[in-house]
């Protein structure tokens, strides 16, 4: 019987999954069990597309298709929440199981609050995330900094502060700090992220803290909800999964890893926000004056839900047909998301005008969170 708060090592009993799995195969096994037993109707995960730099979201209804999703792709910079919102009816008509990193989970929660997603129908299996890498910059980094043809790389991972690649003829690791100082490494929003273990998921999984004979053979699972506990209990009962209590030393190591990541996130916040401080208005003005109004920063933002233009009064300060967009186009968005930007980075990553949008909105939220209280949410009146 698993219970909320448990810290476990878990591993699959399925030899097929075990063979492909990176650390015990618990996540794939739990998803498979949930799908086969109709706990969920569909599983949303990421599979490898053209190569290991190409992450594609998939909606799987047949459990046998799940094995294509095993393993991590650090060049996957996707956000799974808006995918569920837009293409799976916000989980309103189906039960969805989804593998989430921190930004996926925060954005699911925010979309749930906005009635865009029915979180009662969503089973979340969290995975630790130290950050992701833009695929094209990642390839360039491997070519220039590792001196390796990116097409020859067979595996990449981030471990112990290093970006490590395996390729035909060897393996190589370089300290993330060094790579990032030279403009490579993780996306800038990921560097500032301080949500590394997604504890608001039903289960928070990962390989941090798996030590001893279980290293590489089991998944660390923190049970974070009754729903998560129930899934573990049932999967163990059905003999699909085996568990043991996590080694206390492992728990301590996991905590230390997380602590180191949080410290790094804090370092990057200080660095990025300080650089922005002195010429804030000028910088925002200069950068946003390149805006070509593709609306990606709004359409792909999990906390910025646009009221449809049909039946809405004309904007006074944002004129249609003009580029660069009128300043209010961005100012009202920054204001709207000021208390809820989760720093997922989608706005910045998808901006064709190279505007550092996530930096601006993240800075606003962090500074405001630190300075003002309470947060009251929607008002009962209109003005």
């Amino acid at each position, binding site marked *: 019987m698993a219970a909320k708060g448990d810290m476990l090592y878990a591993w699959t009993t399925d030899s097929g999954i075990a063979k492909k799995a990176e650390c015990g195969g618990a996540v794939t096994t739990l998803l498979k069990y949930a799908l086969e037993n109709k706990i969920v109707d569909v599983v949303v995960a990421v599979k490898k597309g053209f190569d290991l730099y190409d992450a594609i979201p998939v909606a799987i209804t047949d459990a046998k298709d799940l094995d294509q999703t095993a393993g991590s792709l650090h060049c996957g910079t996707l956000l799974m929440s808006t995918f569920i919102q837009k293409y799976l009816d916000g989980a309103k008509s189906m039960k969805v199981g989804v593998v989430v990193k921190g930004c996926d989970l925060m954005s699911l929660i925010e979309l749930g609050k906005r009635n865009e997603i029915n979180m009662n129908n969503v089973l979340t299996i969290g995975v630790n995330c130290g950050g992701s890498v833009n695929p094209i910059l990642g390839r360039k980094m491997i070519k220039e900094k590792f001196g390796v043809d990116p097409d020859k790389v067979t595996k990449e991972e981030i471990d112990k502060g290093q970006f490590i690649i395996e390729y035909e003829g060897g393996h190589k690791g370089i300290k993330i700090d060094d790579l990032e100082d030279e403009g490579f490494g993780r996306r800038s929003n990921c560097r500032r992220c301080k949500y590394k273990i997604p504890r608001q998921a039903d289960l928070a999984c990962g390989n941090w803290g798996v030590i001893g004979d279980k290293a590489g053979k089991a998944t660390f699972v923190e049970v974070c909800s009754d729903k998560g506990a129930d899934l573990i209990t049932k999967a163990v009962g059905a003999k699909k999964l085996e568990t043991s209590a996590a080694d206390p030393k492992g728990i301590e190591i996991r905590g230390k890893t997380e602590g180191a990541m949080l410290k790094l996130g804090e370092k990057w916040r200080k660095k990025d926000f300080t650089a922005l401080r002195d010429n804030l208005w000028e910088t925002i003005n200069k950068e946003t004056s390149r805006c070509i109004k593709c609306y990606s920063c709004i359409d792909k933002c999990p906390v910025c839900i646009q009221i449809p233009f049909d039946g809405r009064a004309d904007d006074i300060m944002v004129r249609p047909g003009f580029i660069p967009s009128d300043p209010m186009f961005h100012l009202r968005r920054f204001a709207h998301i000021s208390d809820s930007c989760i720093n997922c980075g989608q706005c910045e*990553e*998808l901006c064709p005008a190279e505007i550092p949008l996530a930096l601006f909105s993240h800075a606003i939220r962090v500074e405001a969170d630190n300075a003002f209280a309470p947060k009251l949410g929607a008002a009962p009146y209109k003005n």
Partner: protein
Amino acid sequence: MSENTEIMKYVATTCPYCGVGCTLNLVVSNGKVVGVEPNQRSPINEGKLCPKGVTCWEHIHSPDRLTTPLIKKDGKFVEASWEEALDLVAKNLKATYDKHGPKGLGFQTSCRTVNEDCYIFQKFARVGFKTNNVDNCARICHGPSVAGLSLSFGSGAATNGFEDALNSDFILIWGSNAVEAHPLAGRRIAQAKKRGIPIAVIDPRYSMTARLADTWIRFNPSTHIALANSMMYWIIKEGLEDKKFITDRVNGFEDLKKTVENYADAEAIHGVPLETVKDIAFRYAKAKNAVIIYCLGITELTTGTDNVRSMGNLALLTGNVGREGVGVNPLRGQNNVQGACDMGAYPNVYSGYQKCETAENRAKMEKAWGVTDLPDWYGVTLTEQINQCGEEIKAMYILGLNPVVTYPSSNHVKAQLQKLDFLVVQDIFFTETCEYADVILPGTCFAEKDGTFTSGERRINRVRKAVNPPGEAKEDIWIITELAKKMGLKSFDLPTAKDVWDDMRAVTPSMFGATYEKLERPEAICWPCPTEEHPGTPILHREKFGTADGKGNLFGIDYRPPAEVVDAEYPFTLMTGRLIFHYHSRTQTGRAKDMHREVPESYAQINVEDARRLGIKNNEYVKLKSRRGETKTRARVTDDVGPGVVYMTMHFAEGVNNLTNTALDPMSKMPELKHCAISIEKIGGN
């Protein structure tokens, strides 16, 4: 699960709009496209898209799509079976050929459709009707680039890729509003700016791209040659030309030097102060690596080819060709304007620019296609075909073009099309041109077919089928091959896009190595790619030029004024261009609701001083008139255009092309779309 009940899948494909060729994912659910999602793995755009790209799926399932063949009977279109429609088309084309010979037919294909459609269309014209009267709409955008760069460098294509601008030390943008017309190429300029690479924009208008530049130089419309000559005079005067490069790799220096001596100070023509001319000339010449990026501001004039050669002159004079960070790069307008030309949908060349006049080339094609007597003559070009309607040309086949809106002088086009005995239009919507057709054949859009688009950096990007066409609409390859079969033509047993591509590869040395298998990679292949082992050629002319003697050619070219200049009756110069929110005649973007909402009707930019003098307020209606017609539009009063200059975009029916001039560039047959004389009349009212 069958394909049509899948709850969701991504299909990676290429954007159907401009020549940048961005990769995007079409999201397919239950057999319908339900959205576009970013493809971050693309080296071209890294998932980023412009306003048109993110909405490019919205027209796919429009209720306005053509879903069945239509035949005009007693002046009205009635639905017909494919059998009936194709029989009628085959019969009438054959009858025209029998009676009037190969010059009695005209074939025109869009640059919006896939390479495979363009190739099989020109093959159909050449094999079926022994005619070279086949052309595509590159003629009215970058025809002068093909002609001019071929003369200067021996290849009519961009020398370097979009991202390569980041390797440059100086970016000179001339007659291109990349941020609006090629937004994801514009992004490279934005990246360059952030890296501190100096950017100069030469444009009569303060465009979105000019706003991005460090230096914006306003010059008088259509005076490029005078300005370039003046720049080159000062470069030579200061000894800043690349003497070694000229000695080793270039012909014609003395000719150029002699000509530019007359342009020491040409401010009276181009309007740029001498010190500014010197400054820009010296910065371009002194930069270690300098690139020229240009667009239709250079080409859409009666001096188009010479304007392009002037860009070639600047680059050759300063040794800025053949390595990273340099070159001369036309930003090709449409998604497949490079490819349509590459495929030989052109009146004087087969695929890969193999000249029809060369007997060996004809013999090769005759053998490959199982045909005899392919013509050696230069076929009739796009707008010249319109001029010949009812005279030499009696029947015309138009694939995916809307000449009534997009060709110069709409009234002329309409009158000419009416003179045809028989007109076939193959399209996805009932366009303004369809009114003039005898038969309309419903084809497929980009999401409904496999194939390739070749972007402005010669990159052959895959187009992948995501959904089935609506109703009875058919893949365009199927339509052409069925017609060919009805006419008893051999060598048209090519059921798939790959079959057509391989048919093309087999006769095209410059693309032989670009197999579909290699094109699967997100990086795709930039031609030339002569062998299956060849990785492609992102940068042209590294060792030698594509000319017969391997050398680049400098030309002494004198300035010529446009065909029609202002006078007392028509005192304003009209320039034309594009908007970020629309694509050409809006057949597709007009059906994307947010694009329509942004700009639902045409407008004309009018200088503040001119508006004040004429008593015209911002946003009120005005009537613009030229010798060829008139249009009503809203005035947008702004300093973005100089006094005496009016700017209008080309997207709206009964719009700017009611005014434009049909006068042609003698070398490339490009009509003077970007310069004519007009009058402005206040109408008033909002």
